[in-house]
């Protein structure tokens, strides 16, 4: 089983005076088939954690490994979805999705066929010819997800992908993310500050405490799997079990014991 792992990873921006650590000895694994959601307040180093996993940042201490082998730099086996969609405004939706295929030298026909299929998967069938600036925020994020999937990654890293969307779009996109993840046989690592989103999506929630960022809590959940098994999202989210778990996580995040420096 393929696994992306952070092994006792610490991170500090070199130039920071006193070199305050953003992350302190974080050990976290994401196996293929898992959906790990990292939850934390701002300043807890969530984004740094994802950038380390993606290879955009190098750890100050510790190692990032894929199947036990150290990784350095980004690579196509770990595709990234950003909060601001980071799409290429000069291409249409289809060419954006086909971008990873183009880098691999796929033929024009192959690119079009794959991109259109992926756009259909994210609910944008027939929209391939649209310019990026013609799309709404939710549609752009769908294109961003389709583009990440085009790379056929083993791991899907998502940095608050739904953070800029309105509440209704956000609910739809959560359901889409679960469907995509279960179909694509990837390991997902998603960063969010929404407790409800974390609970609904995650097979495992990781709570980061701030200053320095470190793991305060790890807990497994199965609401996402139950949604995939056919239960209704609203029903799940209003279940007493869900509500209790949500309040417990909020309490954990706000517990001063987690927020003081170690």
């Amino acid at each position, binding site marked *: 089983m393929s696994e992306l792992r952070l092994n006792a990873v610490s991170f500090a921006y070199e130039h920071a005076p006193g070199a305050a650590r953003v992350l302190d000895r974080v050990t976290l694994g994401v196996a293929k088939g898992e959906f790990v959601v990292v939850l934390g307040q701002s300043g807890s180093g969530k984004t740094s954690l994802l950038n380390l996993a*993606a*290879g*955009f940042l190098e750890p100050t201490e510790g190692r990032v490994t894929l199947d036990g082998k150290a990784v350095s*730099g*980004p*690579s*196509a086996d*770990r*595709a*990234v979805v*950003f909060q*601001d969609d*980071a*799409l*290429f*405004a*000069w*291409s249409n939706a289809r060419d954006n999705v086909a*971008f*990873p295929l*183009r*880098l*691999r030298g796929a033929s024009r026909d192959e690119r079009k066929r794959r991109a259109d299929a992926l756009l259909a998967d994210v609910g944008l069938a027939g929209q391939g010819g649209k*310019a*990026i*600036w*013609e799309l709404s925020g939710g549609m752009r994020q769908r294109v961003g997800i389709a*583009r990440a999937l085009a*790379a056929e990654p083993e791991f899907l890293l998502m940095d608050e992908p739904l953070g800029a969307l309105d509440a209704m779009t956000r609910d739809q996109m959560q359901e889409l993310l679960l469907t995509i993840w279960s179909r694509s046989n990837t390991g997902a690592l998603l960063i969010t500050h929404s407790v409800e989103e974390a609970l609904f999506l995650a097979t495992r929630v990781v709570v980061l405490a701030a200053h320095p960022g470190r793991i305060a809590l790890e807990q497994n959940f199965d609401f996402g799997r139950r949604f995939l098994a056919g239960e209704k999202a609203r029903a799940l989210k209003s279940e007493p079990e869900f509500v209790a778990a949500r309040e417990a996580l909020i309490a954990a995040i706000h517990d001063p014991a987690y927020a003081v420096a170690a």
Partner: protein
Amino acid sequence: MSVIAESGAVQRPEGERKRARRLRKLLPLFAGLTVTAAILVIWHVASTSGWVSPVFLPPPAAIVAALGRLIQVGYVDSTLLQHVGASLGRVFSALFFSVLIGVPAGLVIATSPIGRGVLDPVVEFLRPLPPLAYLPLVIIWFGIGETSKVLVISLAMAPAIIISTAAGVRSASKNQVNAARAFGATPLQLLRHVLLPAAIPSILTGIRIALGAGWTTLVAAELVAAGRGLGYMIQSAAQFLVTDVVIAGILVISAIAFAFEALLRFVERRYVPWSRNP
């Protein structure tokens, strides 16, 4: 209560509102045309009433007549079309060379710290210099032929293109670059598929600015031993106080510059619509 009353007061029939909207759109055009017409009338009265000597300011009708003569007969051994052709040839050769050098230079400045260290001083040395200042030196080095003229115009154009290319490359967002890297883009692929396309709107703006500088420099370059060209035509006419040809030449340059500005704006709207719709 008053809100209802007010909204009732502005309720007008659909057709009338449409007409009002169209009128508001056309208002700036009317204003411009009115002022232009007023200037032409004052100009005509001033030069025909003897208020200003026609030698210094021929009436508008004389300019039109001069344009007709320039097209049919020409001035200083060439027709207007030949003068225009010679000048356009110089400006566009210079544009070609300054894009050929300027775009790669801008890419290097934006992507390589060493490249920036080497090229930035050159650009910053060249940029504030008036082309007339180095024109004599270029003539000493390269003679009075076409090479010198095209070179001086290129040097005047290059900084705008280099600087705008570098700015355009830097406009690619960090996430766009990171996304491409995460999909396994090589540095060359990153350049070709992300950095260069991101820079195109800015490069087009650079070309617009560069063309402005190019026309300015053209006239100066053609003052020196040219046998043809709009700048040469104007300069020759000025020496013999043929003021109508001087003014006609100025108007032709202005019309050409305006046409290219319009063309570039059209290209921008048509081919890089995302720069207006981020």
